[in-house]
């Protein structure tokens, strides 16, 4: 985005040829892909999309343009819940690619701004990209309107930005955890759900098992933190694609705080 502005990529013949404008069929979608200053978000859509006359989205074949050396795997356990002391977001830190642990210390929870944190699951690259885009859009909104966009607005913006990519291989499932005790799950399929407790990823059924039994509104901060950590730990124990450490964020009216523990009792990378 910034780099291609500097390189003058917009004026090159390659850009004009691959302009995403031709890939979108209605102006409403096109406008969503513009930020307000008019610069296009240049995503190069796979060629099969523009040529198919009628594609049933659920039967769309995977992109033929890039062959991957291994299967993409969506192994993760992330969770978020609301209680009297604010919002807790927790996640494991293993990035898996097929049967390989690609990285044992990945940050699956990242802050968007001082009072909003997003947990990510799905394809790691897609999540990083879309978090970055979301951060950019929220910051631009803040600069233009001198106030923060609400979490519902953020979720709606993200959902509309992801909508043109429905049916492609983009796989992101983000949970926005915000200061005014709101938790919204947004997924690249288009789902947008607001709730009190969400867990996403291959380890989520195991985490739900622990959370549903013990979660109460009246938990103290310490109890909530240890519940979140235990839920992720149990999921990492059973799920092969989740593991290593547990990242924990606590979001209150004062902002988010990352909870570090130098010796993580629940770390199982010595197995």
């Amino acid at each position, binding site marked *: 985005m910034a780099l291609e502005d500097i390189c003058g990529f917009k004026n090159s013949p390659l850009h004009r040829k691959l302009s995403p404008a031709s890939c979108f069929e209605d102006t409403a979608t096109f406008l969503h892909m513009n930020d307000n200053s008019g610069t296009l978000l240049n995503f190069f859509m796979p060629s099969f999309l523009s040529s198919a006359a*009628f594609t049933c*989205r659920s039967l769309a074949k995977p992109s033929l343009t890039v062959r991957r050396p291994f299967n993409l795997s969506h192994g993760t356990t992330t969770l978020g819940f609301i209680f009297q002391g604010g919002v807790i977001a927790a996640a494991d830190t293993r990035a898996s690619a097929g049967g390989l642990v690609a990285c044992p210390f990945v940050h699956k929870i990242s802050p968007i701004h001082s009072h909003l944190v997003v947990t990510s699951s799905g394809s790691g690259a897609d999540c990083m990209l879309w978090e970055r885009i979301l951060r950019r859009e929220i910051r631009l909104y803040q600069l233009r309107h001198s106030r923060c966009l609400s979490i519902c607005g953020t979720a709606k913006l993200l959902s509309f930005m992801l909508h043109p990519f429905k049916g492609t291989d983009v796989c992101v499932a983000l949970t926005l955890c915000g200061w005014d005790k709101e938790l919204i799950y947004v997924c690249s399929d288009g789902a*947008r759900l607001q709730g009190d407790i969400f867990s996403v990823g291959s380890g989520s059924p195991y985490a739900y098992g622990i959370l549903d039994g013990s979660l109460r509104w009246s938990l103290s901060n310490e109890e909530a933190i240890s519940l979140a950590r235990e839920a992720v730990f149990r999921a990492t124990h059973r799920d092969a694609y989740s593991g290593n450490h547990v990242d924990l964020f606590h979001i209150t009216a004062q902002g988010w705080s990352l909870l570090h523990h130098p010796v993580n009792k629940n770390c199982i990378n010595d197995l």
Partner: protein
Amino acid sequence: MEYLIGIQGPDFVLVAADNVAASSIIQMKHDYDKMFKLSEKILLLCVGEAGDTVQFAEYIQKNVQLYKMRNGYELSPSAAANFTRKNLAEYLRSRTPYHVNLLLAGYDDTDGPGLYYMDYMSSLAKAPFAAHGYGAFLTLSILDRHYKPDLTREEALDLLKMCVEELNRRFILNLPSFSVRVIDREGIHDLEKITPSTK
């Protein structure tokens, strides 16, 4: 997996929808509302593919409200239903068809109550009673047997409870609660949620 039902009486329409928002095998929410208020006397019930439902229903909702702002009066239920069907039909043969099944229920001050059944192939039918989802296979025969055009609100609610009990007994999936609303001359009224008793 999802279930919608509508029953039209002589001066009201009773509609109900389950409250589950699911993602593969997990119930992500059990208090999810699948009804969208298009205007003071029109409700759109929408089920189908995950993102398509909300996107399409909100699109229709905002367009109906825009019509009212531009013209000063609201669309009738019949007009809203035909507008919705037209949009479904236009998108059907595009690259991004909407896979949604709809029930539109409304009260027109001149024509009275109306229930419109629409599906993802953009068919439209005005019907005295209708249902969507796998649950429809189990409950349409109950509606056929017990429905009469002049049924009272209590009878309609009993008929609805009969359908929900049958789902609870025979449907393989657990649908723990259903939101219920009734539309009549005065507008849209929320009724108590139905939670089938465990057998």
